[in-house]
């Protein structure tokens, strides 16, 4: 029993240590992502409304079909990175998205449950992919890796 508890303690401490070690290098963006649930990855099909191309965080606004809404759509907000970081990710202010374009978005949701979060990956109708800011991409990779581990 003692051995079991020790193992549990050791395991918990190890997990905490790993979490802390993993967090430190990712904490290079200018805020801590406290409002984002980094442990879940969701997906929506959306219609582009507007890209706010601003520092320190650009925002992508999209409409997602929702019959419960009077308009038939729910407005979602997705945070991405700064202008420099999104440029490195291959985004441009004018050409990455177009209002009315259909896309599929993978994202780390808001802890509050509001519609939106941190964009990890956007797939365009032609199959091309636009990645999100690097912390979101890394968090998403970890979620996928954890899900694959559970599935095995």
């Amino acid at each position, binding site marked *: 029993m003692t051995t079991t508890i020790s193992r549990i303690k050791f395991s918990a401490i190890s997990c905490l240590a790993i*979490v*802390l*070690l993993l*967090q*430190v*290098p*990712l*904490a*290079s963006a*200018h*805020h*801590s*992502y*406290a*409002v*984002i649930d*980094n*442990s879940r990855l969701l997906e929506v099909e959306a*219609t582009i*409304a*507007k890209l*706010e191309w*601003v*520092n*320190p*965080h650009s*925002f992508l*606004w999209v*409409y997602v079909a929702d019959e419960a809404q009077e*308009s*038939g*759509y729910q*407005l979602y*907000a997705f*945070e991405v990175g*700064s*202008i*420099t*970081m999104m*440029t*490195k990710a291959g985004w441009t202010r004018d050409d990455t998205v177009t*209002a*009315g374009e259909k896309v599929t978005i993978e994202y780390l949701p*808001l*802890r*509050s449950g*509001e*519609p*939106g*979060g941190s964009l990890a990956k956007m797939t365009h109708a032609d199959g091309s992919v636009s990645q999100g800011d*690097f912390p979101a991409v890394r968090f998403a990779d970890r979620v996928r890796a954890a899900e694959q581990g559970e599935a095995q």
Partner: protein
Amino acid sequence: MSINYFSRKNVLTLVIALLISACGQTTDTTAVVDDSTTAPMQEYPDWGGWWLIADGPLGGGLRGLLRNLNVYQPEVKSFIERVSVPGTNLGGGAVFCVPVRFNGGTNGGGTDAVEFLLTPQRLTITNEDGMLRRIIIDGRPLRENPEPSNGGTSIGTWEGDTLIVETIGLHPDTTFPSSSRPNSPLIGENVHVLERIYLNEQDQLIVDTELTAPQMLVAPINFSTVYRRDPGHIIRDHDRCSLNDRSIDPVTGLERFDMTPPADLPPPPPR
């Protein structure tokens, strides 16, 4: 009796006086230049253009080094562990709006490209965050106990093609390793930075740094940052200020996610 100021004698006297004055100024200027620390412009190494950290935004020797939290003083290590728990909301939004400062870490290049501008007797380091460091290379000694400034007080000396830069006078309340982030430790007092900057054979710009920060670090740390050129780079501001930041509440300073739609948001598509 009228005086003729433009007589040949007066004009000649004036010309001679101006010549003597000009010669004197030239002599004085030359006297403060130390030939051992300056070189004609064409002999300087080519550090032109924009530079990025070679192995990406999370790269650089410093990031790897800091994965070992034992480099920090115990109370600093505890702080980092506490603020690293996912979901911790630390706030501090106004901190994001101070001018960008040098903190003894890298000069940028992760999220923001860097310029190393060599001019006679001067290296200016600046980046897309707006950091500005002025490094004097005219042989003068490092000023003692300077008042803190955003870029610090620096002097440089050449050792062959390597520039040795010594920096003090940094603001003690600057965060580290990112200089504009409330949930990071402060560098503290009596910070001293020694950098060796040079091109390697692969045309990479190497910055070997020794950072002494006794209130933050257990002992001085040494790390290298490898920069690669970014040909054709287009400068873009990387402004970290929280003004207009949907991620920071400007009133409370707490992190948030502002869902207020833009005023010019297009209407939803027809059903």
